[in-house]
């Protein structure tokens, strides 16, 4: 398939690193800076966050983001719940892809305790994660194009289309788990819900529908001058800065770093399949957009490859959990591990041996990819105008539930 893809007409010199803590007094005194405030209730901030911008004319000279408007203190809550009770809690972090949150947490406990996961459960996890990636990227695409208002036919039209496909995906998940949104289907050692009759066929039907509509989206985005002009060369994050900031996932790959934990630290069934990693080098909004679009194709391919070969067997290596104290973490053990979610490296740092006789973690720290993405804003916004703020913010795709926890 050939895409109506346009090469860069604009080439910008590589910008020097901006100082995010620049002292306002040191800036040009005659410039007469104006400060404006975006948020915390702003329609295009994907949740509740606030950015304070200082403008010289139309150009941003300093940006200070504030977060924490959704700080729900989950890490404190986790210290008094047991390992088995935690899965439904972490669903609510990255609420655009709840499945991968559960997966990250349970893989962390499994790796820490050295538990085996049956092959059937690993296949199911991989399929679920890839479908979730498509759903998450679809929602991102809808809101991103809504924010920059540049798709053919106005801003909201593409969002309506992507939500149509996302609904189909939620139906597939509802068939599997009975819930539309917060699933609670992963558990330590495997899965809670087995594949229902007819599920693979439903998944294939859904995947075919998404695949059939992908060229539509591509045509509406790549073939649209407004979108391309508003995104090329905007919000550049170079390779070194991206690494230093700890960006991950599509944001990091758009800056030219070929790192994907699905391939480099394989979890679930990713060690049995080949993952083609989408990388771009420009590091601008367009590159991040492009990487996500290509990732959707790759996810479609992986689901198609795996859905017919789900092996038979048990779905959980542990006995079905009756009491919440069934799994205990060794006291004093400290462990970090991470998986690749649609937003990047979602890590979990666990210290074992907490309350409830060791069934609760002593300390649980999540490494949210969105928080790192947001910390790029003071660097990426400087030098651009206010309308670019929503484009840059949308392209970084932070989810505030995960930023603030």
């Amino acid at each position, binding site marked *: 398939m050939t895409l109506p893809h346009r090469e860069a007409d604009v080439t910008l010199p590589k910008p020097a690193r901006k100082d995010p803590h620049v002292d*306002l007094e040191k800036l040009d005194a005659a410039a007469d800076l104006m*400060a404006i*405030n975006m948020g*915390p*209730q*702003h*329609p295009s901030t994907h*949740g*509740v966050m606030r950015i304070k911008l200082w403008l010289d004319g139309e150009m941003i000279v300093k940006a*200070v983001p*504030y977060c*924490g*408007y*959704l*700080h*729900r*203190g*989950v890490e*404190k*809550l986790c*210290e*008094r719940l047991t390992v088995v009770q935690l899965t439904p*809690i972490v669903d*609510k972090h990255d*609420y*655009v892809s709840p499945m991968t949150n559960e997966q990250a947490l349970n893989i962390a406990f499994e790796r820490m305790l050295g538990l085996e996961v049956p092959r059937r459960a690993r296949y199911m996890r991989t399929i679920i994660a890839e479908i979730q990636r498509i759903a998450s990227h679809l*929602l991102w695409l809808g809101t991103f194009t809504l924010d920059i208002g540049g798709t053919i036919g106005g801003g909201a039209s593409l*969002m*309506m*289309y992507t*939500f*149509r496909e*996302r*609904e189909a995906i939620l139906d597939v998940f509802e068939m599997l788990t009975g819930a*539309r*949104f*917060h699933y609670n289907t992963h558990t330590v050692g495997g899965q809670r819900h087995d594949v229902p009759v007819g599920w693979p066929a439903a998944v294939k039907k859904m995947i075919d529908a998404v695949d059939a509509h992908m060229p539509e989206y591509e045509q509406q985005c790549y073939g649209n001058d407004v979108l391309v002009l508003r995104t090329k060369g905007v919000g550049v994050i170079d390779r070194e800065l991206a690494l230093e900031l700890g960006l991950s996932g599509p944001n990091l790959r758009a800056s030219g770093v070929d790192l994907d934990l699905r391939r480099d630290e394989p979890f679930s069934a990713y060690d049995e399949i080949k993952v083609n990693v989408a990388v771009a080098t420009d590091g601008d909004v367009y590159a991040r957009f492009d990487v996500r679009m290509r990732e959707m194709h790759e996810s479609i391919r992986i689901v198609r490859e795996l859905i017919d070969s789900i092996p038979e067997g048990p779905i959980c290596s542990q006995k079905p959990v009756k009491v919440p104290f069934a799994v205990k973490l060794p006291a004093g053990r400290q462990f970090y591990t991470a998986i690749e979610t649609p937003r990047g490296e979602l890590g979990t740092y666990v210290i074992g041996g907490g309350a409830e006789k060791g069934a609760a973690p002593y300390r649980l720290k999540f490494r949210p990819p969105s928080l790192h993405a947001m910390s790029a804003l003071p660097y990426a916004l400087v030098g651009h105008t206010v309308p670019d703020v929503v484009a840059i913010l949308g392209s970084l795709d932070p989810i*505030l*539930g995960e930023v603030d926890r």
Partner: protein
Amino acid sequence: MAVDESERNFEHPLYHYWENMPGGGIGMTSLDRLLMHSARHSLWFFPMATSCCAIEFMTAAASRVDMDQVGTIIRPTPRHCDVMVVAGTITVKMAPRVKKLWDQMPEPKWGIAMGSCAICGDFYRDIYSVVPGVDTIIPIDVYIPGCPPNADQVMVGLQRLQEKIAAQLAGKTIDKDPRPPNMIYPAIGTHGDARQTEATATGQLEASRNLGYGGQEHRVPVAPPKPPAGDAT
């Protein structure tokens, strides 16, 4: 009783203009009925969308469920809107903003609490930074329980609100909807409730008014850590 529910004004603002116009007294009642009728069928929503429930609220507005079919429009500014939908957890840092945005909405206005977090704080209600229910801050007319409520449940809640408006239209007095069962009563009392003290209500109002633009100092010197507060958990 600190905050009086009866101080809420459900009369349409145009009503007063009409009343003061020469000869305006004629047909006033029917005009009011007309205005309330149109308000009922063209509710403009202000999404106070903070977390996961907001995504389901977007779904309700998007292609499959399509709230637009009953004449709702989602507007991102409080000054255009009739209904505030609180979708998601409200934290201590966000609460004064919610109060302020509610106060900025013109009368008549209604509040919907969507999801258990907005109703009672859900499983976060014990946590130091979470407000145990948004009805401790603003009056709420309709509760939509669920975590999150399905998009079609949102439509059910919308119908419930329209019923209440219709009852107002017919001149009936309507009782306040109670919180759904099992959603624990907060220590500080709900808005308009006898348990909410004067100090709480005025404190909330003050805090929402003092959200000055320059309120947050950009650079604060680091104080040495304070001695730990409270007992051991």
